[in-house]
């Protein structure tokens, strides 16, 4: 532990990776509130995992109807709308996790992408906007594309630099977007855009299914999108791109030396993360039905970051949990809602000091061949306690 290099250091899970390597052949040490659960999960056959996943997804779809005491929000906060808020935060956290968790790039202005997505949806559907109109659902892909372009525009100049400059530039970018929304007349500042569109469909009583006050369909729409995004991100994570991201996160210089085009993959991470942020922004704009300059402040960016760090940097399931918690707590306990920034600010500091891997730590095994690597490792553990020479393989990818 005496090394104190000041070059690009490794991400949280490398610390635990080292510990695992150190203790590997003696006892596989895992930490976290879900200690046994992770083991059991990994031991399940693939069919079993799918079955459990289906059950979890089914429960998730029922969430708006699970409106009873310990779970539900306090009076004044509509429960289905709270579910929607949790889903949006979860989606944002999944997107930000690609940038911060996988590629290790600290983005402190993520709300800017959220804002760009919201404004795209508003500009293309609201009657207050002078632009041509398109159906609301089309604004989701269009919003993603526009945000991705913004991500590339911001990423290309800054991603060539060292990581910490990116943090300050993204922070600045977040402020610029908010200020521009205020002072550019065409963005309508605080007046904003009303009657942002929503998906088609009218219920029997003549009220649109996707009305602003009706959280349940919005929640289902968002949940479906989360599942799709999770599948895509999971595939990316296990692909060449995902391995490149993790290599960059662990040691950028080493990755570059090994032939990983780091700049290209960093821009990819940034653009993909941005587009998910834009997608969630467009969803948010649709549900609220109103977009102005008031919701896109730095504080929200930090809440997003807190969601990712709380859930477990680099773990997409953790991000969902973290995002849901960050949205849920102020709505569940209204007494502490005013202190939420204080609470999550302190949480960031405490987490970094005592539990930098978050609630659900990122997986440290070889992702692409996870199952086989585990079997090999298990076989080694059964053998006499000779430290295996290639033990680090599982952690170094």
């Amino acid at each position, binding site marked *: 532990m005496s090394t104190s290099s000041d070059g690009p250091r490794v991400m949280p899970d490398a610390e635990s990776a080292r510990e695992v390597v150190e203790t590997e052949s003696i006892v596989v040490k895992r930490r976290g509130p879900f200690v046994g659960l992770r083991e059991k999960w990994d031991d399940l056959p693939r069919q079993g995992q799918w079955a459990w996943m289906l059950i979890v997804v089914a429960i998730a779809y029922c969430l708006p109807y699970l409106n009873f005491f310990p779970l539900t929000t306090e009076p004044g906060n509509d429960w289905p709308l709270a579910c929607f808020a949790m889903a949006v935060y979860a989606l944002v956290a999944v997107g930000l996790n690609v940038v911060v968790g996988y590629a290790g790039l600290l983005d402190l202005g993520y709300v800017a992408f959220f804002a760009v997505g919201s404004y795209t949806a508003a500009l293309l559907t609201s009657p207050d906007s002078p632009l041509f109109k398109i159906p609301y659902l089309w604004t989701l892909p269009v919003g993603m594309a526009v945000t991705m372009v913004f991500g590339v525009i911001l990423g290309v100049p800054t991603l060539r630099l060292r990581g910490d400059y990116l943090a300050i530039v993204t922070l600045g970018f977040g402020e610029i977007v908010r200020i521009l929304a205020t002072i550019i007349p*065409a963005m309508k500042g605080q007046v904003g855009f009303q009657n942002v569109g929503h998906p088609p469909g009218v219920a029997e009583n003549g009220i649109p299914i996707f009305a602003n006050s009706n959280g349940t369909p919005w929640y289902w729409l968002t949940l479906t999108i989360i599942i799709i995004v999770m599948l895509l991100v999971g595939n990316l994570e296990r692909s060449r791109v995902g391995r490149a991201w993790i290599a960059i996160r662990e040691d950028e210089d080493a990755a570059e030396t090994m032939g990983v085009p780091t700049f290209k993959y960093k821009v990819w991470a940034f653009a993909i993360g941005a587009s998910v942020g834009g997608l969630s922004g467009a969803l948010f704009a649709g549900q609220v039905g109103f977009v102005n300059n008031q919701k896109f402040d730095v504080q929200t960016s930090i809440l997003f970051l807190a969601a990712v760090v709380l859930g477990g940097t680099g773990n997409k399931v953790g991000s969902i949990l973290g995002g849901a918690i960050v949205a849920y707590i102020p709505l569940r306990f209204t007494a502490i809602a005013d202190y939420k920034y204080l609470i999550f*600010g302190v949480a960031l500091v405490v987490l970094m000091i005592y539990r930098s891997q978050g609630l659900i730590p990122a997986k440290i095994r070889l992702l692409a061949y996870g199952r086989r690597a585990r079997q090999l490792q298990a076989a080694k553990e059964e053998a006499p306690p000779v430290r295996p020479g290639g033990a680090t393989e599982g952690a170094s990818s």
Partner: protein
Amino acid sequence: MLDLLLITSHPVLDNSWINFDFDSLLQNFWSATFDGLTFGAIYGLIAVGYTLVYGVLNLINFAHSEVFIVGAYGVVMTLTALGFGPSAPTIGIWAIIGDLLLAMIVGMICSALMAVILERVAYRPLRRRNAPRLAFLITAIGASFAVQYLIFVIRGANAEPAVTMFVNKPVFNVFGTIIFSQQIVIVIAAIILMVATDLFIRRGRTGRGIRAVAQDPDTATLMGVNKERIILITFILGGLLAGAAALFYVMLVPSGVIYNGGFILGIKAFAAAVLGGIGNVRGALLGGLLLGVIGNYGQILLGDSQWADVVAFVVLVLVLLIRPTGILGTTLGRSRA
């Protein structure tokens, strides 16, 4: 992409985007310059805190903006306790100077204390644990928010009542622009403080320690430098200058002492540090003055005070693109005695 093009070329939007008001800039050129220099001096003082910590720890101390605003609270509370109010005081000039010095010292102590607490509570445990780089940045931003909203909880959402320190008299005329006593006080005091800091780092024994740790912490430790002590001194030094900047800030923007008032100022000060060359004390002053002036020009050219922030960020990005090491470019470690 197509969408972007359509938005920017749409006839309805054409006239309502950005207007350049060159006449106004020409008319107000000199007053903008002097106002910018005054603000820039404050940026410069705050920027030194960023630059020193970055030089020694390679860390963007996001919470430095809170170190500054805590100092500003200290200054305002001291002045209020001494009987200063919204209207200028009627006591003699020497009494005013004494009171201001007292307020400045209280502000400096508040800021330095805040910086020490931050170092001990947030950063030191991470160093002990040999935490990754990203953990430091996340802690810094978390600490910044925790302190900001702690102030929010204690002092509420409103700014502190304004205090006026002295009658802001016009002193003389340059290029048809009136220079006020306030501006002279701020710029001269800031330059004196910066020169003192520069001398402290270049001449003194402790300054040599700071430079050594900035250059190579391990070797410095082997050579008998107490690294932890040097890091603490660096934070204190940054805090002291931020406290002094807080007094000038209260002087210039009496109603600007609010829980989140330091945040944007902090980002701009960091931009100033990068502009001048991060890790370089002289660069911090130069960068601060330049950024203040550029921001002011941008604000007058584009017609809204909020443009100053946008211009500052754009300048930051451009500098990073063209000359990532800043104008003066040297680091703290490489500067010679």
